């Protein structure tokens, strides 16, 4: 049955639903110990394989973020052979992260050899890889890569973006949701509130930043 909208604020939310949302977030982002503590405190039950895969994802995640991309690629291959074999875009992006690490470490010769043996073969596949290679190679033309117009390629935002993409790809491979329930809920809430705010007398749009600030 439909609930009267005026009663929304009064509806009690099922405790179990809240717990599921929180656990989903912790698992997605590889907070293993927090997940275990949360499960034991709430008395929830979860399949063991979730935790096992999370441990492996965590190591891959950290290697990639810490600048050890080749190790991350190796571990991903061990997890499942075809995750990266079937995803040229992601593999290229990971390899380019390694190139960036070499450039920032001022290992020019190593960077060049890596570009010649690992990056340039992609150019025969599609034009878009050629454009990307040109962008990365231009970092070499600057004593301080930060001065290069393509400096965003050495930034944390770009690295985070690639690593997030890797995490999502691994999750998808195991038929796990690639977005957390929390993320979905916030997206849906924002859209609903946006629509309602356009009605006369509707509530203001939802802003996560404002919401967190008001707590």
């Amino acid at each position, binding site marked *: 049955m439909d609930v009267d909208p005026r009663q929304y604020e009064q509806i009690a939310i099922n405790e179990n639903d809240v717990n599921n949302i929180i656990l989903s977030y912790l698992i997605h982002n590889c907070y293993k110990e927090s997940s275990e503590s949360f499960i034991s405190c709430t008395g929830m039950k979860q399949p063991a394989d979730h935790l096992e895969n999370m441990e492996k994802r965590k190591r891959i995640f950290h290697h990639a973020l810490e600048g050890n991309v080749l190790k991350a690629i190796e571990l991903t291959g061990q997890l499942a052979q075809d995750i990266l074999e079937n995803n040229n875009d992601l593999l290229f992006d990971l390899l380019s992260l390694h190139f960036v690490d070499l450039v920032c470490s001022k290992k*020019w*010769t190593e960077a*060049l050899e890596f*570009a*010649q043996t690992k*990056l*340039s073969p992609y*150019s*025969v596949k599609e034009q878009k890889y*050629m454009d990307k*290679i*040109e*962008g990365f*190679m*231009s970092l*070499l*033309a*600057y*004593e301080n890569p930060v*001065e*290069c*117009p*393509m400096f965003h390629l050495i930034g944390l935002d770009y690295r985070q973006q690639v690593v997030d993409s890797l995490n999502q790809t691994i999750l998808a491979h195991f038929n796990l949701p690639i977005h957390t329930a929390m993320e979905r809920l916030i997206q849906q809430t924002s859209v609903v509130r946006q629509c309602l705010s356009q009605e006369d007398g509707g509530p203001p749009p939802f802003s996560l930043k404002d919401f967190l600030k008001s707590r």
Partner: protein
Amino acid sequence: MEMDSLPNGNNTAGTPISATATATANPAPPQSSNLPQLTESLKLEHQFLRVPFEHYKKTLRANHRAVEKEMSAVISGVTEAAAADLSPDDAVNHLNSLVCRLQGLKRKGFYSFDFLFAVLSLEEGSRAEHLQAQKCRVRLDHLESADAENMSEWNNTRMKRILVDYMLRMSYYDTAVKLAKSSNLQDLVDIDVFQEAKKVIDALQNKDVAPALAWCADNKSRLKKSKSKMEFQLRLQEFIELVRAENNLRAITYARKYLAPWGATHMKELQRVIATLAFKRDTECSTYKVLFEAKQWDYLVDQFKQEFCKLYGMTLEPLLNIYLQAGLSALKTPYCYEDDCTKEDPLSQEAFRTLAMPLPYSKQHHSKLVCYITKELMDTENPPQVLPNGYVYSTKALEEMAKKNNGRIICPRTGLVCSYTELVKAYIS
């Protein structure tokens, strides 16, 4: 005469040029003031005046820099002497050496900017400045000397100037020098300017960018003003040569020093060239393979020629091409490509037809009719008249015929006999 010995084809080539030059150079009726002719000439002779002037300005700037450099050295020398605690003898020696520098400066030639064409005031003027100022004056005099009485000679000189210009641009320097010398044209052509370009072009053809880079440095402010990227392209090519030699670390150092500054404005080109480090010289990837081809040096030569001509105010095309195209375009009509085109028409020849193919037809406001009998143009003063049989002849010819035949007209093509009074005047649209 030099020109008489040219092959017949070249003589024919001269015809449209002469015709056009005559028509253009002599728009005013004879005996009138020179001013209209000079005005018309200046429109076509921009390069003729501009090049020696630019050359002169360049020499002035170079000498000015030398003067300033010497003066600042002398002034700082005097300042040092004042500050230092020198003995009287040492002070005298120091000042003597400064005086010697000033005397050397005097020989370089001080000059006044009040009058660019004024005679240099110093007893020992700069030879180069003097010669270049003289050349400017000679050319002004030459343009002023064009008048109805010596137009034929003047046009002949112009034709030779045009040929020398063409030879210089095609790098036929020796031939150009010989023609200029044998016709006494030295002050009317730009051989010395093109010799400057020759050094750079020869070096580029030997895959050496140093003279070109030196030329860019000499003309830095003007190239920057015109947003030239000549230097950038030279730097890119030198980078490519380092990559070709697999001198990768030196290539990276070179890029940081000479290519990075251009990144803000030419990032896409910079990226494409830098990427050759990842692809190496033997790549099969066509985007980068082309960068390693020898013809890239030919592009640099062409680019340099364009920049050079632009800087000196020269036309980008040889004068010969411009005059030839103007002449052929003026003569070109659809009739020229028909089989019965008259042999007197230059476009009856295959070579000229080929040259004229991409050119537009001449703009004819009115039809032009030529009398079959007299070969003269039929116009409002000599209108065409139609015989009863439909054939058309000029009024003058028909009047002449009637006078000789008691008022009777005999058609030269059909033999028809009729009375002058039976003719009907026709109008040209």
